[in-house]
């Protein structure tokens, strides 16, 4: 096999893996958008907040320690214990559910029936608020997140491809785990929406509020449920991104990469978020490798996704899987 082709395939594979992470963030957007029509700008920050909380709990950090020390003049920073990863993940999920409840109770309950742009502005506010709270609670230094996921080159794939093609592929174990987790998550979410009572109620609310009320569905409960689910997806995304590149505040910027993913996949489709993520991941890596680096001086990964989204907006504004926009006259 010629070297160039082998390289291309490797880049393609790595693109898929990167795409999975984009898809995870996009998934959180889709969940909330479908059920409540809110475009949740804070989804990326939620992933950051979840990762920060997870690290904080695992390390036994005292939340708001700077604040406490400044007011009381004490010097507490750590409880002095370490929480095992699994328990910490469960506790973090509890925090995300409490967050979901608060968001619904103190923000969106008062904004029911408002224009989408107002709801969107509220989520921008929420994003900055959450970023601030995350900073205040756990501090702003870059943290490493190690929940025991396998990391580094997958030796088996490396050897297998080397034997087969004479060139060993570099695929990160973490990316493989992320892909498997994402697949399970998506299947789980689809099963939940299709076959459970709450899933059915969720779809009902997504479709028509008045009708949902008339069949006995509490809108408030469903919205809290949906924000909790989005919190869960954010936690998973936060763990994966955090394990890959450390928990830092630039993590919230990955939310921006989810935007082109959504434009490609459609804002209302769970499979769309996945496929969109994969296309963007593969697209930007291949473009950089084949065209960007040799001819355009590189660094195309920063803008390729947005350009692709723009092209989609022109030719298929509802995305690949979005509901068709039909205006009846």
């Amino acid at each position, binding site marked *: 096999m010629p070297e160039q082709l082998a390289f291309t395939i490797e880049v393609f594979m790595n693109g898929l893996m990167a795409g999975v992470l984009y898809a995870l963030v996009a998934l959180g957007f889709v969940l909330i958008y479908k059920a409540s029509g809110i475009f949740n700008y804070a989804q990326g920050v939620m992933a950051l907040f979840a990762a920060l909380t997870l690290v904080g709990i695992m390390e036994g950090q005292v939340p708001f320690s700077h604040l406490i020390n400044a007011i009381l003049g004490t010097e507490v920073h750590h409880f002095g214990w370490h929480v095992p990863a699994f328990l910490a993940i469960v506790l973090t999920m509890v925090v995300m559910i409490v967050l979901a409840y608060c968001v619904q109770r103190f923000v969106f309950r008062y904004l029911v029936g408002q224009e989408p742009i107002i709801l969107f502005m509220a989520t921008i506010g929420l994003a900055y608020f959450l970023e601030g709270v995350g900073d205040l609670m756990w501090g702003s230094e870059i943290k490493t997140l190690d929940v025991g996921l396998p990391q580094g080159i997958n030796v088996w794939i490396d050897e297998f491809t080397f034997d087969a093609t004479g060139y060993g592929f570099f695929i990160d174990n973490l990316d493989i785990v992320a892909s498997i987790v994402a697949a399970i998550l998506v299947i789980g979410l689809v099963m939940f929406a299709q*076959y459970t009572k709450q899933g059915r109620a969720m*779809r009902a609310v997504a479709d028509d509020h008045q009708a*949902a009320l008339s*069949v006995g569905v509490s809108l408030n409960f469903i919205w809290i449920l949906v924000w909790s689910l989005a919190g869960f997806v954010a936690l998973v995304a936060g763990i994966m991104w955090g394990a890959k590149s450390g928990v830092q505040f630039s993590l919230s910027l990955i939310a921006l990469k989810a935007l082109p993913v959504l434009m490609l996949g459609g804002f209302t489709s769970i499979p769309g978020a996945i496929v969109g993520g994969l296309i963007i991941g593969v697209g930007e890596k291949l473009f950089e490798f084949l065209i960007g680096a040799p001819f355009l001086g590189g660094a195309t990964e920063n803008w390729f996704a947005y350009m692709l989204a723009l092209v989609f907006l022109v030719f298929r504004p509802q995305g690949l899987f979005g509901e068709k926009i039909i205006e009846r006259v």
Partner: protein
Amino acid sequence: MERDSVKDQADSYVTDDGRTIGPTVMEMKNITLRFGGVEAIKDISFDIREGEIRAIIGPNGAGKSSMLNVISGFYVPQEGEVWYKGAQRPPMKPYQVAQQGIARTFQNIALFEGMSVLDNVMTGRLTQMKSGLLAQSLWKGKAEREEVENREIAEKVIDFLEIQAIRKTPVARLPYGLKKRVELARALAAEPTILLLDEPMAGMNVEEKEDMSRFILDVNDEFGTTIALIEHDMGVVMDLSDRVVVMDYGRKIGDGSPHDVRNNQEVIDAYLGVAHD
């Protein structure tokens, strides 16, 4: 064909066509509903008895739909009491009212347009689904049995309303008349104590109206469902209902059997207008 008049005060009685009308299941006491300075409903009282078809009629803007919205919890009246199954009902959210066994349809149809007919009817079973979230994920057997039972009831309702042929069709593709029927099916699937129908025949042609009338009578006959319906068209109501409340400008101007109501001078005036001289 007119239903016979009401035998007053008796706790339950049998109609001429052999249906048993039970005691009062819902009672509205001195309901007043205001929107700002406008009184949509002024001090109205009436009752609904078990197993009857109770109609609320009146000209446009009489407050009929507001009344239905009060019963189903979409509006909360400023004054008055709602009594349901012998107890006063505290102010409730619409979904809580639905969980208490009061199902409804809407004048402008509120269906889940993106779902199939079957899925829409299945949402009607939501109030009857008992297993919680955890039970559904962990204890699969019980949840599955429940799903099968709910599915059977939904299919029965679909058969009953003769919409088998469109079971899998997305609702958005259906014509208006069929949508109305699907909405009735969804409400019926909840096996409601009281079924509220908001202008079930609005916008239908004569044939569709006849179909719908037949279904309403059959539902009442077959399942013994108590039905409260709003209609605008006098003729249809007279044939269908056991007792009729007549509203005009938010006031109650008549209450009784179709025969009584038809001969009530105030009702005639409201519908035909009064000669001013």
